[in-house]
């Protein structure tokens, strides 16, 4: 009953190098079978990139790993064929091979290279980068040790690692995230594979690093004529690199075709919804900026945090300045975004505002009460009052809810500690809070593990709202969520702001989210605020070179206007 796609318009009529037909994978769990992948079919062509797009749990990673038979023991391939062809047209069936057989090991690394999402955990920490790459060469290409060593250096040079001779003798932890991913790519390329599978290769990286890595992969693919299967959840990235796209949801490919068709003439309602959510976040929410002439709610002056040791004379030396001389103001009703790459100090700044981390220098002035107060010198009871007015929403919706408590206990905790509410009144307040964040009151008796990421984040928001706060600090509150859920949560926050007269400090690395949500944006780089301005100005007319490079590295979800290729590069 399955019809297979003939080469679609815009694709060359070549024999695909890898064909997958009706692949199905079942997970045999304790009480049920999860059909993680259902009847998936696609082709990979030399020199072209197919992007497998989907939200978490769609089965995209399992599909990719199944090609190399790298699946969990409780997963079983329930049906379908995987055919690999070489230049002569000889066919090799991968689906019949035993998971650890000699044949499949020859394919892994030899004909198909794999890049994982998290380069730290996929590289061994106890051996040098050079020996790990050389191992693949010794195994698959039967080189002698000196040959392998020379080839390793050559590969590291190809992936644009400076001083490859020296860096080959370094360990993983001496590399930055981007460099580790480059080393991982070098390892995947060691045996000159025909196919490169990249499983979310840049998700753990900053946008500028992501742009560099994608440049590198594109160049290597062009030079070597490899076919690439890229797995990602980021439609912006897809638009930048893909030739063809397959959209997965709940184990099925709901739509596949050339990239232009998927972005400009999508058929399936799910594809449309996904695109809408992505494009929505690429605009601003069109709300009126609040007045900025009164007293600000919160004024931060010269705030700094240094980490380092005490020197031999007992004086504090700050080897690392995580946050350095930051000045910020937050007016009532305003949404202030703090944007920066990892290590820019944005999370430390957010935590200092609540004194979870004690500031080393500077002042935080709280002007929400009748009399202005200095947060950095507050005593315990005052600090507790301040913390009930300024609340935090966490990044990770899984770690921030106590797994041993029901939703009711989680949300009630701040109310119980504050005292006053008991019994039926407490229940009524919790039901009200749940309704406010769009959850049913029946959620009360459930445990956090019963909820999806988006719902958990709503529970976290309800907890933050419990004490009628004035300011909510959202620390990467949407970065762990899928794109469609992300838009919903942001709209919820905007709606709550209208209803409850809130101000937000929104910490994020994702510029599109900040653009949608914030009135003003502060861009942080190496602990300092390099530029502050209205969200539209920062996103369309950045002044500082760093901001320019950051904005131009953000993938644009339109394959007809690829932004990453002509981006501004920043050298500091």
């Amino acid at each position: 009953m399955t019809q297979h796609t003939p080469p679609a318009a815009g694709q060359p009529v070549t024999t695909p190098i890898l064909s997958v037909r009706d692949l199905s994978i079942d997970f045999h769990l304790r009480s049920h079978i999860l059909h993680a992948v259902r009847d998936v079919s696609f082709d990979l062509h030399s020199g072209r990139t197919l992007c497998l797009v989907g939200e978490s749990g769609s089965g995209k990673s399992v599909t990719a790993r199944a090609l190399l038979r790298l699946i969990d023991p409780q997963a079983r391939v329930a049906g379908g064929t995987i055919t690999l062809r070489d230049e002569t047209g000889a066919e090799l069936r991968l689906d019949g091979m035993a998971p650890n057989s000699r044949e499949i090991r020859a394919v892994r690394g030899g004909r198909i290279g794999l890049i994982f999402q998290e380069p730290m955990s996929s590289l061994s920490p106890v051996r040098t980068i050079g020996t790990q790459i050389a191992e693949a060469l010794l195994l698959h290409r039967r080189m002698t040790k000196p040959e392998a060593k020379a080839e390793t250096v050559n590969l590291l040079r190809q992936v644009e690692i400076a001083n490859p001779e020296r860096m080959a003798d370094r360990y993983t932890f001496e590399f930055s995230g981007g460099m580790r991913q480059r080393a991982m790519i070098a390892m995947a390329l060691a045996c000159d594979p025909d196919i490169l599978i990249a499983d979310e290769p840049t998700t753990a990286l900053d946008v500028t690093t992501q742009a560099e890595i994608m440049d590198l992969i594109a160049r290597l693919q062009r030079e070597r004529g490899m076919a690439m299967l890229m797995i990602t959840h980021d439609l912006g990235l897809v638009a930048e690199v893909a030739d063809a796209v397959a959209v997965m949801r709940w184990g099925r490919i709901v739509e596949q075709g050339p990239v232009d068709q998927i972005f400009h003439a999508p058929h399936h309602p799910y594809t449309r919804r996904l695109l809408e959510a992505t494009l929505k976040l690429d605009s601003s929410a069109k709300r009126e900026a609040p007045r900025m002439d009164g007293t600000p709610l919160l004024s931060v002056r010269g705030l700094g945090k240094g980490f380092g040791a005490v020197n031999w004379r007992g004086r504090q030396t700050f080897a690392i300045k995580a946050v350095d001389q930051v000045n910020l103001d937050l007016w009532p009703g305003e949404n202030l975004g703090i944007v920066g790459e990892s290590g820019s100090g944005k999370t430390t700044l957010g935590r200092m505002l609540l004194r979870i981390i004690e500031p080393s220098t500077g002042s935080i002035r709280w002007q929400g009460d009748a009399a202005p107060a200095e947060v950095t010198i507050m005593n315990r009871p005052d600090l507790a009052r301040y913390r009930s007015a300024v609340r935090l929403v966490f990044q990770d919706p899984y770690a921030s809810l106590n797994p041993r408590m029901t939703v009711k206990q989680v949300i009630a905790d701040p109310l119980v500690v504050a005292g006053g509410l008991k019994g039926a009144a407490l229940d009524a307040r919790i039901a009200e809070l749940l309704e406010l964040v769009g959850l049913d009151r029946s959620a009360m008796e459930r445990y956090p593990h019963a909820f999806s990421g988006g719902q958990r984040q709503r529970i976290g928001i309800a907890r933050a709202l419990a004490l009628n706060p004035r300011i909510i600090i959202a620390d990467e509150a949407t970065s762990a969520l899928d794109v469609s859920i992300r838009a919903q949560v942001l709209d919820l926050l905007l709606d709550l702001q209208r209803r409850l007269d809130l101000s937000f400090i929104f910490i994020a690395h994702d510029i599109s989210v900040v653009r949608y949500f914030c009135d003003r944006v502060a861009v942080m780089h190496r602990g300092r605020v390099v530029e502050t301005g209205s969200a539209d100005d920062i996103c369309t007319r950045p002044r500082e070179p760093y901001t320019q490079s950051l904005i131009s590295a953000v993938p644009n979800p339109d394959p007809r206007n690829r932004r990453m290729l002509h981006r501004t590069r920043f050298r500091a």
Partner: protein
Amino acid sequence: MTHLVHTPTELPPDRPMAPEDTGPAISPLRPGDDPGKIAVASQWTLIWRKFLSNRVAVFAGIVVLAFYLIAMLAEFLAPTSPSLARPQFTYAPPQSIGFFVPDPDGGRSWQPHVKGYTMSVDPASLRRTFTIDDTAIIPIGFFVEGPAYRMWGLLDANMRLMGPLDASQPMNLLGTDALGRDLLSRLIYGTRISMSIGLIGVLSSLVIGVVLGALSGYFGGWTDLVIQRIIEVISAMPTIPLWLGLAAAVPVAWSPVTVYFMVTLIVSLLAWTGLAREVRGRFLALRHEDFVTAAILDGSSRARVIFRHILPSLTSHILAVVTLAIPTMIVAETALSFLGVGLKAPVVSWGVLLQDAQNIRAVSTAPWLLIWPSGAVVLAVLAFNFLGDGMRDAADPYET
């Protein structure tokens, strides 16, 4: 039901789309199983389910429960009093139970029984030896009247689970010791002491270990430094000589029960360090979890953060560690009593029983004196270890 989208030219606008899925595809393994049920399950329900799937641990759990049941009902289960000496039956071998006796008319009739003994005296050494006499039938039965006892020190009774119908006849299913006391009865009474010393000892080390471990892990800094150094000093002490010394300090005039509590206390004072380290490690890991930070921001006091937010996430781990600590206690008590510095007669424990098997002559004449008490120790320790391992695995139900 594959749905493949074709190029727009091939796709007529009115072509029906595949029906949209509403969720991940799941088929239950057994009909009627609802994967959604897990959504409202508490942590403990999940832990219990995971534990039940580990057959070895469940079996070990049943064995442990059986041991405690025996300990509770010792008076009723033991055929006779553990201190009842019958000098006429010293080192009598185990008897086996038979069910049919030959009738005078050549048939066989139903009568549970044990065989009696015949005694012979070695003329050279004047030592008495007993052999089973197949002709002497001693009828036995269930719920018979035996030597009187006070159940749990409250109820006067003389009902025994099983025993000889005539209380003056010998029934020694596991043989007797040098004074002719029934080994089975002594083993059953010994279970009570040996199994409870594990529990009581672990409970007191639990309190010390959890409190000091929690303080050490949560506050860190100087508190941590001091507590960790204390732990290191204590774990560096050679245990057996220390026990010997402390036990020697126990006044001779104390009653056996007081000595029993002192021994427990001594054993547990040295055993809390492992638990404290475990708890400290978990606290260090959880201290910076987001949900703990959230609790601090909610205004919770330190005590509330420790006891309401962090400790509940540790209880299953603590339970597992405790279960693994009990066998150490049992072995420690056995070792102390065996060396003669722990419990002493008339208290009966497995260690005290093993004391009887100290000399090689006793072992060669009456090997049962060594086999049964040490078998009981081995079985109990193994059961606790398997149970503890199973509990530790189940404590994290989200891992597959």
